[in-house]
């Protein structure tokens, strides 16, 4: 029987991500196989000789589930005020924060840039 507490981490090299949408689609695809996204971290991959990467951790879910797996919303923000505004807009639209905290923030590498994002799950 499925074990909810199992987690897996997948990393994406920054150089392979040309836009935020690439990461969002990859995370949605991975959610479909690995379970709900629980963590996003910046990383350096030793296997790729120290190259910058983004590490995403997923937690397996047991069926049936009410979690809207595979429907994520990565929203880029510029500063705290922008984060507050966009966070409020997403919540008003019925989206739920994916990462911990009222403002589910994460940093990711996209190409050679570090991007600040909010991570929400679309309303089912």
């Amino acid at each position: 029987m499925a074990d909810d507490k199992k987690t897996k981490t997948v990393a994406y090299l920054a150089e392979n991500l040309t836009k935020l949408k690439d990461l969002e689609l990859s995370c949605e695809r991975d959610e479909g196989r690995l379970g709900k996204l629980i963590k996003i971290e910046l990383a350096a991959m030793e296997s790729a000789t120290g190259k910058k990467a983004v590490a995403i951790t997923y937690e397996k879910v047991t069926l049936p589930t009410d979690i809207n797996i595979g429907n994520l919303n990565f929203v880029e923000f510029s500063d705290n005020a922008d984060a507050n505004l966009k966070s409020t807009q997403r919540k008003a639209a019925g989206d739920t924060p994916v990462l911990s905290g009222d403002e589910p923030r994460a940093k990711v590498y996209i190409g050679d840039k570090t991007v600040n994002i909010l991570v929400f799950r679309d309303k089912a």
Partner: protein
Amino acid sequence: MKIISFLLLICMIVMLTGCPKKLYSTRPSTDFERNKLVNQINDFLKDRQIGYYCAINGGSVTFSYSDMKYNCSSTASPITKPTKSPNPNVSPTPNIYSSVVPLTADNDAIAKRIRNEVIEKGVTAVDGVYNGFIDDLNTGRATTNFIADVIDLGVGASVGIVKGERPLQILGVALTAFRGGRKSVDLNFYREQTIPILVNKMDDNRAKIYSEIIQKRDNNKNNPVTDYPMEEVIKDIVRYFNAGTLIRAFSELSKDTAATAKVNEERVLDLKNVTLGKVATQKDRDSSVNAFGILNKLAKEASALSSPQSAKTSTLAKLQKMAEAIQNNKSIVDELNKDETLKSLVSDLKTNAGNGVKLANTIIDLRYEADGKLKIETLNAIDQIIIDNGGE
């Protein structure tokens, strides 16, 4: 002036060394006399242990409502020496011990009930003394800090009033020493932690131990009581008591700091062995998410109590077709069989074929375990099988 300086020095010495020890107590008092709990707990545990050992040794346990105690009588011939050693604090009486007999289901149930009573009442007693300790901790430290603040402010103010170089020198030295002493108390007795942090840590430690005790009790429901015996319960209650001490709080806080640093360090190390993902296209994403959605929908249909049997049969049939299609696909199975976990899950597809929810979750497990191990084309092929067989 000399008298003032002398009095100030005496005050400092008293504050730093002569304060009642209980203001700086690092653990709850073991003197339960305050609530008469010590005598109650000792008496309580003693007769409960008699009842417990009586039950597991085949004796007849009775409960006296007049003095709220268990008693024991044995139907077997008494022997002079115990064949099973009880808690050494419990004085044996000749008719308690009999030949060792197999533990019957009835006696096991009685022993468990008595053991569980010891858990609940022991924990309640420890909670009582812990709450008293916390109250004293808060009151004591607040009082100490208040008095120390008054002295600090008073001496500080007097520096502005006193005339003469020598008295000012003395006051300056005294104030420095006094403040150093306060810092030392905070450092040595409270490790520079605030009371709320320490209390939170102790609460956390206690909650973990309590949770372990309850889990052991619950896991023991269908096993003999000797798998979680009275001796272990008493040991656990002592652990529960010790979890509510300052010493344990300091030690766990240190471990937390070290653990956080280690996790942060390990996170970098772990990433050395992490799967490198291939960036997904919209098609990849749709295929994977749709496959999950279909499995979830079928699992919901299979588990819904309100679904008619015909619907459940149809749902199960779809899942069975999926499972068969996976097992009949030679290239998929050849890859799956290269890994022991995946091979075992293929076997589970047959085992769980009769249960819709289990079958859906087995397919989910297969996809989960296969990710990172199989070729992307194979993973996509499995998803396509799910979509082809699970749709309307």
